[in-house]
């Protein structure tokens, strides 16, 4: 089901060696980190004048002098020293002597040297980008990406999965952009050596062309990642493909969204926008199929992991016909600070939760497949009490089983969300959400169910909490996200620490902790996948 494929036989050589590569990448990055940290220390001690210079000049006003005195004109002396420095009154304006007062204050010798950096900044960073020579009419090009290592060992004993790693991978990302006034092209591609499933994957996340047809119309054509809606890690009207494997193994948040090959058109009429997106070949979620992460399979009545002969699940995919494409629409606008949106979707359930037939011992077991689905919804988002409130609702019309009596097809649902977030203290934010799934025709569902005891409650409630704290000049982020269902009695806790050690290098340490009373609930089924992870990224 993954759009990625293993391209060579060599890459099957074995989980052990690939795991080694991933580990080696991490070790290498750690060494690089340590050496650059040491280098930093050297640099500081080798250039004490910069620090001292700054210290001296700062010490004056900051110690004894009252501010009035420190602000006392430094007159000729200061002006003279300015004239010697690179920052010169002559740079300024047509009347330098009048502006000299403005230009006075670069008294710190360390500071003066610093400014020179801006003059050759572009050259230094030139590896990253280049501008078309013809200025506004030309093309601009950018190149970037990152190298990243990730290890995520499971920390609970799993009977279903033999693999002790939820992830062990080394990833290379390449970003290419070519931009022009009326058009642009974009590429985002990943290649990663995956120790957990012993393969090398190529995953193109974006390969698209954007065309601007004036201020009222534009279009993006090609492979792209798409997102809308107001929820935080909860998607009601966003039926674009997700990658739940990535979400639960410590990959960066962006990997929760999977790409699709689509055409996006946007129409803007004054304060109202209309997005229409067509995905000609239905693109489902990258769902949990037992191979990397285990899940509860109600057909088997047990947790299914990589030990199972049925893993990975291979559902029956809709025929690649024109009528099997999916269409997403959104109409949005605002009234003052209040944002309003209406959504529509016609396509399939994004996960294979339907069966091709009722299981019958006389026949081969049925396949899992995708049932047809239409979704209609709306959202509101507005400031409230110093924070933001959002309300979103969606009706999932499972129109092949509106009566709810067909056990092979999911029932229709209403999904609702209320969220509120605000900053509680400086650099400390909190977000709360309440989410509801109401399954229609629940009595009919139970009456006809093939696995009555495992069916979701008529009302499934979910509460989420997000806490985020930024420290050390925003270089350290402490984050916690908790999902808790009071009716299913399961929880998913995502603690995470992100530290930007030095500019291009960041380390992320976190955990994916799943608990549940039962092993068939949404998060409860994932409890054997509980893992901790470390991720080291070098961006360029």
């Amino acid at each position, binding site marked *: 089901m993954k759009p990625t494929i293993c391209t060579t036989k060599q890459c099957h050589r074995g989980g052990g060696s690939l795991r080694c590569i991933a580990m080696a990448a991490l070790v290498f990055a750690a060494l690089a980190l340590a050496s650059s940290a040491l280098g930093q220390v050297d640099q*500081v001690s080798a250039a004490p004048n910069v620090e001292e210079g700054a*210290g001296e000049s*700062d010490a004056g*006003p*900051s*110690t004894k002098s009252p*501010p*009035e005195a*420190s*602000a006392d*004109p430094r007159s000729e002396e200061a002006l003279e020293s300015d004239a010697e420095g690179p*920052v010169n009154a002559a740079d*300024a*304006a047509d009347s330098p002597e*009048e*502006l*000299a*007062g*403005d*230009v*006075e*204050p670069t008294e710190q010798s360390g*500071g003066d040297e*610093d*400014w020179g*950096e*801006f003059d050759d*900044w572009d050259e230094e960073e030139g590896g*990253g980008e280049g501008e078309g020579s013809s200025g506004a009419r030309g093309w601009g090009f950018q190149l970037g990406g990152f190298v990243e290592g990730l290890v995520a060992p499971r920390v609970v004993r799993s009977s279903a999965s033999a693999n002790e790693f939820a992830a062990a991978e080394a990833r290379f990302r390449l*970003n290419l*952009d070519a931009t*022009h006034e009326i058009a*642009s092209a974009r590429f985002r591609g990943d290649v990663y050596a995956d120790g957990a499933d012993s393969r090398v994957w190529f995953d193109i996340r974006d390969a698209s062309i954007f065309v*601007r047809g004036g*201020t009222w119309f534009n279009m*993006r054509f090609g492979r792209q*990642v798409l997102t*809308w809606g107001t929820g935080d890690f909860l998607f009601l009207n966003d039926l674009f493909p997700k990658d739940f494997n990535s979400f639960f193994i410590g990959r960066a*948040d*962006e990997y929760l*969204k999977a790409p699709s090959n689509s055409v996006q058109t946007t129409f*803007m009429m*004054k304060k109202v926008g209309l997005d229409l997106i067509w995905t000609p070949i239905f693109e489902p979620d990258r769902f949990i199929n037992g191979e990397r992460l285990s899940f509860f399979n109600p057909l088997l009545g047990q947790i299914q992991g990589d030990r199972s002969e049925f893993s990975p699940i291979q559902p029956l995919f809709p025929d690649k016909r024109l009528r099997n494409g999916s269409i997403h629409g959104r109409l*949005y606008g605002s009234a003052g*600070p209040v944002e309003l949106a209406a959504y529509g979707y016609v396509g399939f359930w994004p996960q294979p939760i339907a069966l091709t037939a009722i299981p019958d011992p006389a026949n081969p077991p049925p396949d899992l497949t995708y049932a047809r689905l239409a979704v209609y919804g709306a959202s509101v988002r507005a*400031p409230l009490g*110093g924070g*933001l409130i959002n309300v979103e609702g969606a009706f999932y019309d499972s129109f092949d089983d509106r009566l709810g009596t067909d056990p092979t097809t999911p029932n229709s649902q209403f999904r609702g969300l209320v969220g509120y977030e*605000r900053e509680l203290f*400086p*650099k400390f*934010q909190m977000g709360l959400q309440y989410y509801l799934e109401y399954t229609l025709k629940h009595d009919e569902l139970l009456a006809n169910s093939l696995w009555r005891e495992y069916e979701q409650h008529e009302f499934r409630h979910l509460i989420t909490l997000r806490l*985020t704290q930024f420290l050390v*000049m*925003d*270089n350290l*982020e402490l984050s916690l996200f908790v999902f808790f269902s009071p009716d299913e009695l399961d929880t998913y806790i995502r603690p995470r620490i992100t530290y930007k050690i030095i*500019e*291009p290098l960041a380390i992320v340490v976190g955990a994916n902790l799943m608990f549940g009373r039962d092993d068939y609930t949404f998060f409860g089924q994932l409890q054997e996948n509980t893992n901790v992870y470390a991720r080291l990224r070098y961006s*360029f």
Partner: protein
Amino acid sequence: MKTLNKIWLAAAAAAILLSTPSMSAEAGDLKDASQIVKRTNEAQYYAANDGRALIRMKIVDSKGRSQRRQFSVLRRDLKDGGDQNYLVVFDQPADVRNTAFLVKKHASKDDDRWLYLPGLDLVKRIAASDERTSFVGTHFFYEDISGRHPDEDKHELVETTDTEYLVKSTPKSSKGVEFAHYTLRINKKTFLPSQIEYVNAQGKAYRRIETAKVDTVQGKPTITRLKVSDLESGGYTLSDVSNVSYDLGIPDDIFVETSLRNPPQKWLR
């Protein structure tokens, strides 16, 4: 990415960095400090109808380690002294490239702000936040950049020199501020501040913002280099402004969600 959760603040950078003073300098010295600060505020934050700039910042922490920020800003005033729109598109550091902010600054209530995260294709609305905390991990505060409302402080004229006014400003309410007062040195001709120094309750200056360079763009003196120093830790941030243009005729309809996803290159370069 999270570091930049509040980068939207950058939008406001345009206000200070695209500032153009009123050129109609009075023949005589002004005597009323409130009047002077009002003029400074207008000169800094409400000049020209729109503007564009490329802003580069170098952040140096107390241990001498440095980081960079680079972003482009488009600004459009809806009303002088009133609402403004900003679009900010980040280019550096590499991990936030193409991250963008849309800010609808309101004079009389909290700003409306959106953040675009390109990896997720997510347009996230951002709740109001403390204005006196680090702006995108720099030593600038949001308020340094978007402007502090003159009515929030009591202003007194301490001294008038040949070239400058020296004004002492004391907050009317100590709620939400970490300073006891601050002093402004304001150029008499341009009304651009040349230095702002913040003093804590112990009477100690702990923070300073200095104008390091003024250029004339389209006939308007414009602050193009600023330095903010944390006098206690020794850390500082340098800010350099280039590619400045005023009165481009930027239309209001580019300050919309779709411009976050696909920044309007026509106006950005």
